[in-house]
């Protein structure tokens, strides 16, 4: 929608927005400090937002650092994406009972429609949701759980003002400004202890909710300041991933010795797949009660780093760490393009930050291209 519809809110206006969503039956989820990170949880007040904190990230390192101004969204991204709320880590699929006649009765679990609003969705996270839409909804067999959650989620994006050193959304074309896929998009304007939010409407639903509350038209100064926020953020994102011809490049390098080098560092822990906002793989698990007459099927997140993931009759197909890391990286950056017509990476940098040994996919790809430029990547360790 055109930015001519943009309005602005103060902090009280943001509170009114949260209240308006609550009045329409939405549970609002937003950023807050929990366990030393900025996490997403239920939120009823702007007082819950992470005022006074920002994050510092590098390979294998994440720290909250105090900040003095009034920013409530003055951080990059926390370890969680919104994946857990849309594509839950554990969800029931069906229950099967053995009847008295020895037959089987199958009941599918109908996913429950939950009205949930996500406040503070980063542009890279919007892109990640669009990628999961493609995989889980736009194939021949849409996923009912994801579809139900997705249909009832109200997305309030917040443009990035403070990217981390691990961010590379500009390489992936996903940020730092939200372009589409949101109901409302905010840009936080910080002036000392004061904040205002420039609001852009992205959907009819967004317009309906915004009409519930009092807003002011955006002044030209505010519009210019909002542009400045994302331009400044873009200029601070220095990490690069060269995506030019990356699919063929990785396909041509499936036997590159660099994979052995990564395998010496990779712990095969799967943190990257948990933190990644697009990783969608799941496992089906059957759990039978003690009577032996009732079996529940659960769908749980899985990771291509586990040995069981590739299990065939004679054992795991990908038994080496090298082969599992290669599967993850080549899928994310190359074969995803063949499977779903786009890259599987949004450049959020979580896999770099949350890797316990700081493996950095942008470096691994650059090494394989022979174009690694260590001096341009701040905060990088031993690679």
């Amino acid at each position: 929608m055109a930015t001519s519809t943009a309005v602005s809110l103060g902090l009280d206006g943001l509170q009114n927005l949260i209240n308006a969503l609550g009045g329409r039956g939405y549970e609002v989820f937003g950023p807050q400090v929990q366990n030393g990170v900025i996490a997403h949880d239920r939120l009823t007040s702007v007082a819950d937002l992470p005022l006074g904190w920002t994050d510092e990230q590098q390979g294998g390192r994440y720290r909250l650092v105090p900040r003095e101004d009034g920013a409530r969204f003055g951080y990059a991204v926390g370890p969680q994406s919104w994946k857990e709320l849309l594509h839950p880590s554990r969800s029931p699929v069906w229950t099967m009972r053995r009847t008295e006649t020895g037959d089987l009765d199958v009941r599918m679990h109908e996913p429950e429609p939950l009205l949930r609003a996500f406040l503070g969705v980063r542009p890279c996270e919007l892109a990640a949701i669009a990628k999961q839409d493609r995989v889980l909804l736009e194939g021949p067999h849409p996923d009912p759980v994801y579809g139900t959650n997705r249909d009832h989620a109200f997305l309030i994006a917040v443009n990035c003002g403070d990217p981390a050193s691990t961010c590379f959304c500009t390489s992936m074309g996903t940020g730092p400004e939200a372009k589409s896929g949101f109901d409302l998009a905010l840009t936080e304007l910080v002036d000392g202890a004061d904040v205002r939010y420039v609001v852009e409407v992205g959907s009819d639903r967004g317009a309906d909710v915004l009409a519930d509350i009092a807003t002011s038209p955006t002044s030209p100064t505010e519009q210019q300041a909002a542009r400045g926020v994302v331009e400044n953020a873009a200029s601070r994102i220095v990490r690069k991933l060269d995506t030019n011809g990356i699919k063929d490049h990785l396909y041509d390098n499936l036997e590159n010795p660099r994979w052995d080098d990564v395998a010496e560092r990779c712990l095969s822990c799967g943190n990257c797949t948990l933190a990644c906002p697009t990783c969608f793989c799941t496992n089906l698990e059957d759990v039978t009660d003690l009577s032996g007459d009732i079996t529940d099927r659960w769908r749980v997140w899985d990771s291509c780093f586990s040995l069981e993931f590739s299990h065939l009759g004679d054992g795991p197909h990908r038994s080496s760490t090298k082969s599992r890391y290669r599967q993850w990286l080549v899928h994310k950056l190359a074969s995803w393009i063949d499977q779903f017509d786009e890259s599987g990476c949004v450049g959020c940098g979580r896999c770099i930050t949350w890797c316990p040994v700081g493996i950095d996919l942008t470096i691994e790809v650059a090494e394989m291209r022979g174009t690694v430029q260590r001096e341009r990547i701040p905060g990088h360790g031993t690679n």
Partner: protein
Amino acid sequence: MAPTDSKSGLVPVRDRSELSPLLVPRPFRVIDRIQELDDTFSLHVVPVEGELPAFRPAQVSMLGAFGVGEAAISISSPLSTRSHHAYTIRRAGPITRALTEVPIGGVVTVRGPFGEGWPLDTIATKNLVIIGGGLGIAPLRALIDLAIEERSRFDDLALVYGAKRPDLILYQGDLDRWSELGLDVRLTVDQGDDAWAGSVGLVTDLLGTPAGLGVDWTDTTVFICGPDVMMHFTALALHELGVPENRLWLTLERNMQCGNALCGHCQLGPFLICRDGPVVNYADVGRFHRVREL
């Protein structure tokens, strides 16, 4: 447009009330259970309710044993068999063990069938050679019957089948019947026994050798199903003999779970085997299939 949500007064992103039917397991009754080998059984099954689903040779179903789990098994009965579907299962782990122990009258669950079958209709070559290794003959069984029905389309129609030992040759009755119907059947075993007078060696030893199959390889389509390593060397040997890569078709097995291209398990490079396979063209898959552990 989707109706307005009664609670929020807002229009949902999309209207998507339909569940994905291929996630729902369907109970099938076992009407016959045939011991093929020491550890290999064929279950003949029919739906407890409703019709037998249509299938194409090489398509795979997720066959479920109550309380244990599901395994991907291809349908091995001919298309012309309207009374049941057959699944040939080797005991390899707890799920396949449980499946092979379901008695006649018992119930298994079926999801599917999934995937792409053999492209028999589109073959334009004079000859068709079908190559199976071990249990890989099972997904070929329905195809062979179909190819024999269309025998006149081909100058040469042959089956090369390799097993580890003579007592591990599956479907001996079918092999005899197929020979009588005009299929050139060539058998080989890795290791013979006192009674075995046939060929000893790999399937590749029967391709283009004086003792083996002599066809015009430059005008031949080949369908291959067997262990990965067998398909790897067979494809290389056939390419060497002059079969273009795009006339070689493999059927691939990877860990298959959802069958709906949602769970990510059955990947091989760009392929999601449940969606894009199990039958794939070697010109597309070769560069990935040749890489170990991909």
